[in-house]
């Protein structure tokens, strides 16, 4: 048989014709194009019923109401709760990326026990029974050894049942060393205690203010409850008020202010006193308040008259004399003025001198407890637990000196910064075990090398973190908490809010991993330890405890998501200052402007480095989410390298151009950075955002940039002992 070339070609042609007449090529083309448009590896999100779960955000102390959009059992988006008194539907960048925390790869999925060296990241998953038993064994051992005081606890939150449970546990166990992480809230509380003469929280009636004098407060950079402040700022922009920002750097707040007064860093108190000078000199103060409800005015007057003339203040602060006078006049002339402080986001407590000077201004214009002014709010009082009853061990332990020295020599409630110094130095008695909840001291504290030194001396560190943060990474045992979207918690007293309010944080979704509410852990530990400890924790679980504690308010909370005292008005002057008058001469302001010295000499370190806060960089215990990092500008962070903002004049003198790599040196540390030439920063000052440069425990979360915390030396405020460093001297040289 001779099948030639032709026959073969003919066969092919026939085949081609047949193929063309069949659906094969057309259908295949269609299918392949569909395939290439819907790759099988591209996720297809499942559809389902849409519901909203209303809860309260706890990622910062702002206390916003959030609505979690759900598709069946999946959370898909976080939105602000419309009508919520704090944020009315708005949501901040961190809040809206909260699902990246919930579903993020940094979650700790089960209790972990360290197996390698500390910080090496080698863990063994253990059961909750084991984890709790090991913790209880350690606690029993220490208690039986008669050293209950050697257990310390640090809580990231100040108010609510969670810190109260931890505190109660420590008290019943017998340790005085319970601490919370301080912020400007503590500085305000101490200022109120010293000048107003009472224990109170500061609330700011920003909705009704028509003139805000801000000493470096990042009104729209995260200060107070951020969304609430944004809304206030929008009202002011709309003509309801004026904003004056005194700050060495053109922050976003300064850029949006009506008047930006660039001030030499660290001299805010002097400016406040200079303005007080003008107000007193021109008799623009509220004489009815000053004469009836204050004490020490004459001494204060003598002090500011002698030392704080506008000329002199101009020399100290670099703000022009005329500006000082005109600012003072417009501040005093405004119908509802308000002076505020707390630098940036207010996470570093700051200097008492500054807080008191600013508070004195508020007193002069008589806006304490007045519409638009600063209000003294009662601390949340709904936690009314009896006891706890203490056994002999607890009494003996509790009588020991706190290692941070708070409460005795110092008015501050807790001073973890000093605690870590003491432990690192090995002074007094040793700390054998440390519990950390909702805080990340290994990262967050200034001079955090010192924290690391202290931690190295503590043989048993337990972290309750839901995420593998810097502190959890260095712990011995991790008892992971649910994240806020999976748990119940009360969220009282949003930072700076002017009315008593409790928000309810409740589960939007069932726990995704093998985690346990820290409240339940504490209750179970107490019950395992037995005796008076078990008696102090009679609840079956945390939810029962929460319901019991909130009592009548529980139903409101479940229904509304929050419980607010709508009719609250601050105490009138006669009640508040009737017996104990406002004191203009409290220790801290008595001697006028006392600058907070920062580390470094100005010859080796000719520049001043100031960390700044940005809404796009989270600086608290929760780090940046991938979405947030994505919003960071390329002149703040580029390919993992952080930029320092520097005035072009300063940069020119150092031979630095935009984007140049440079070595940043401070007395505390070194870092490699790039330079961003920014006309909005005072010559001689350089600035970097806080919150970057976390330990790279996860590629997508938070690895980027440089942390300012190891670069800035810690400075204790002489009055309060709280962290007061606002910067550090620095040197920048071309790399």
């Amino acid at each position: 048989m001779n099948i030639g070339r032709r026959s073969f070609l003919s066969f092919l042609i026939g085949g081609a014709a047949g193929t063309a007449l069949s659906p094969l090529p057309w259908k295949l083309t269609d299918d392949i194009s569909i395939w290439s448009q819907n790759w099988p590896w591209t996720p297809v999100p499942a559809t389902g019923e849409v519901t909203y779960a209303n809860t309260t955000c706890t990622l910062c102390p702002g206390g916003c109401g959030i609505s979690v959009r759900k598709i069946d059992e999946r959370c898909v988006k976080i939105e602000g709760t419309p009508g919520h008194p704090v944020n009315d539907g708005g949501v901040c960048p961190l809040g809206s990326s909260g699902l990246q925390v919930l579903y993020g790869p940094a979650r700790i999925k089960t209790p972990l026990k360290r197996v390698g060296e500390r910080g090496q990241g080698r863990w063994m998953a253990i059961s909750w029974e084991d984890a709790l038993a090991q913790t209880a064994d350690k606690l029993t051992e220490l208690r039986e050894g008669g050293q209950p005081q050697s257990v310390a606890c640090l809580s990231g939150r100040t108010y609510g049942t969670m810190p109260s449970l931890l505190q109660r546990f420590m008290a019943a166990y017998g340790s005085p060393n319970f601490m919370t992480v301080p912020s400007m809230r503590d500085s305000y509380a101490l200022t109120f205690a010293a000048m107003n003469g009472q224990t109170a929280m500061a609330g700011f009636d920003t909705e009704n203010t028509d003139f805000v004098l801000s000493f470096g407060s990042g009104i729209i950079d995260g200060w107070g409850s951020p969304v609430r402040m944004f809304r206030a700022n929008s009202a002011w922009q709309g003509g309801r008020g004026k904003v004056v920002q005194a700050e060495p750097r053109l922050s976003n707040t300064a850029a949006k202010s009506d008047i930006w007064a660039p001030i030499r860093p660290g001299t805010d108190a002097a400016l406040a006193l200079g303005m007080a000078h003008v107000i007193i000199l021109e008799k623009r103060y509220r004489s009815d308040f000053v004469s009836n409800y204050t004490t020490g005015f004459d001494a204060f007057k003598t002090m500011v008259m002698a030392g704080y003339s506008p000329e002199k203040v101009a020399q100290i602060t670099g703000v022009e004399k005329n500006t000082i006078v005109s600012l003072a006049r417009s501040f005093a002339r405004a119908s509802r003025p308000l002076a505020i402080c707390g630098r940036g986001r207010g996470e570093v407590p700051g200097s008492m001198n500054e807080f008191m000077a600013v508070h004195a201004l508020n007193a002069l214009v008589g806006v304490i407890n007045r519409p638009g002014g600063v209000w003294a709010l009662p601390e949340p009082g709904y936690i009314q637990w009896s006891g706890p009853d203490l056994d002999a061990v607890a009494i003996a332990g509790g009588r020991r000196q706190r290692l941070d020295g708070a409460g005795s020599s110092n008015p501050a409630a807790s001073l973890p910064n000093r605690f870590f110094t003491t432990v690192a130095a090995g002074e007094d008695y040793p700390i054998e075990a440390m519990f950390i909840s909702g805080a990340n001291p290994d990262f967050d504290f200034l001079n955090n090398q010192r924290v690391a030194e202290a931690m190295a001396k503590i043989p048993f560190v337990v972290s309750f973190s839901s995420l593998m943060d810097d502190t959890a990474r260095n712990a011995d045992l991790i008892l992971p908490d649910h994240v806020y979207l999976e748990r119940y918690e009360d969220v009282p007293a949003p930072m700076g809010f002017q009315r008593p309010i409790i928000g309810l944080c409740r589960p939007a979704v069932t726990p995704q991993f093998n985690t346990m509410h820290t409240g339940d852990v504490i209750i179970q530990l107490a019950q395992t330890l037995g005796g008076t400890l078990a008696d102090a924790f009679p609840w079956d679980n945390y939810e029962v405890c929460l319901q019991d504690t909130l009592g009548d308010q529980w139903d409101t909370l479940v229904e509304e998501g929050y419980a607010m005292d709508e009719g609250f008005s601050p105490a009138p002057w006669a009640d508040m200052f009737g017996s104990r008058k406002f004191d203009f001469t409290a220790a801290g302001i008595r001697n006028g402007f006392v600058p907070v010295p920062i580390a470094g000499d100005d010859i080796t370190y000719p520049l001043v480095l100031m960390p700044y806060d940005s809404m796009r960089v989270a600086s608290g215990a929760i780090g940046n989410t991938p979405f947030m990092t994505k919003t960071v500008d390329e002149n703040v962070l580029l390919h993992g390298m952080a930029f320092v903002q520097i005035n072009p004049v300063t940069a020119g003198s150092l031979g630095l151009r935009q984007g140049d790599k440079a070595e940043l040196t401070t007395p505390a540390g070194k870092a490699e950075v790039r330079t961003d030439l920014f006309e909005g920063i005072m010559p001689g000052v350089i600035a970097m955002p806080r919150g970057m440069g976390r330990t790279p425990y996860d590629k997508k979360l938070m690895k980027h940039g440089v942390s300012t915390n190891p670069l800035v030396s810690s400075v204790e405020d002489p009055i309060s002992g709280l962290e007061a460093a606002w910067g550090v001297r620095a040197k920048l040289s071309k790399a």
Partner: protein
Amino acid sequence: MSTTEEHANEVPAEIADKKETTPETKKESAIGYVILFFFVGLIASLIVGWIIFPRLLYSQKSQPFDFNHAVHLDLVDEGCQSCHYFREDGSFSGVPKLAQCIDCHEEVNGEDPNEEIFVTEYVWKEREVPWLIYSKQPDCVFFSHVAHVSEDSLYDGKDCVTCHGYHGESETLRPYQYNRITNISRDIWGHNIAGFARNSWDRAKMDDCAKCHAEARDAASRRNLKAPTTRFITNIIDVAFPGTRPAGKGSSVQTERGACFECHK
């Protein structure tokens, strides 16, 4: 098939002649071979294209267990919407969830082994049934049921049968066939491999949507012709020269038809 047979008969004859071939007959028989092979190729490829290819292209899975729509339809008052209902936000619930069935099927009611599977494997174990959905569109498609069903929508209210056929009267679930390349249900392209559709529910490709949308636009544009004479003339054109009058203008600038986002997401 008849052509195939004819050729098949010719083949042995030609082979038989092969021995005594002169150059001329050689040539002739070569042409014969050429023709033969052309048809062999043609027929083989037609078989491949029409019969083998569809078998290779589609794979099938069976449903977790069988379901009798007809029985259920008799028991409910509101037709399809009794189980496939609209949620308050206007979204379509689709295939029922366990919670909807549980009222009747908490325990095994009858003899049907399928019901037993449902109750013991799913209801008692609180697992949703992983139904395979014949009419499932790919992720890039936005389809609003309510927009098609509601009388108040932009398109006239359609009933379920228009697109889903008489599925509601079926007594068993046929196997779920899907395209091996695209993973899309065979019902979208239609069961006819050439794409011929006899009924409106035979296919659900983009062209089928477009066709119906064009008709709807057309109807709308006709409604908008207010003057009776214009309407009359238009109707005459439609009858005399069907399909020549341009369909009503859609909102798309690119195509003058419906804008892409109407059906894409």
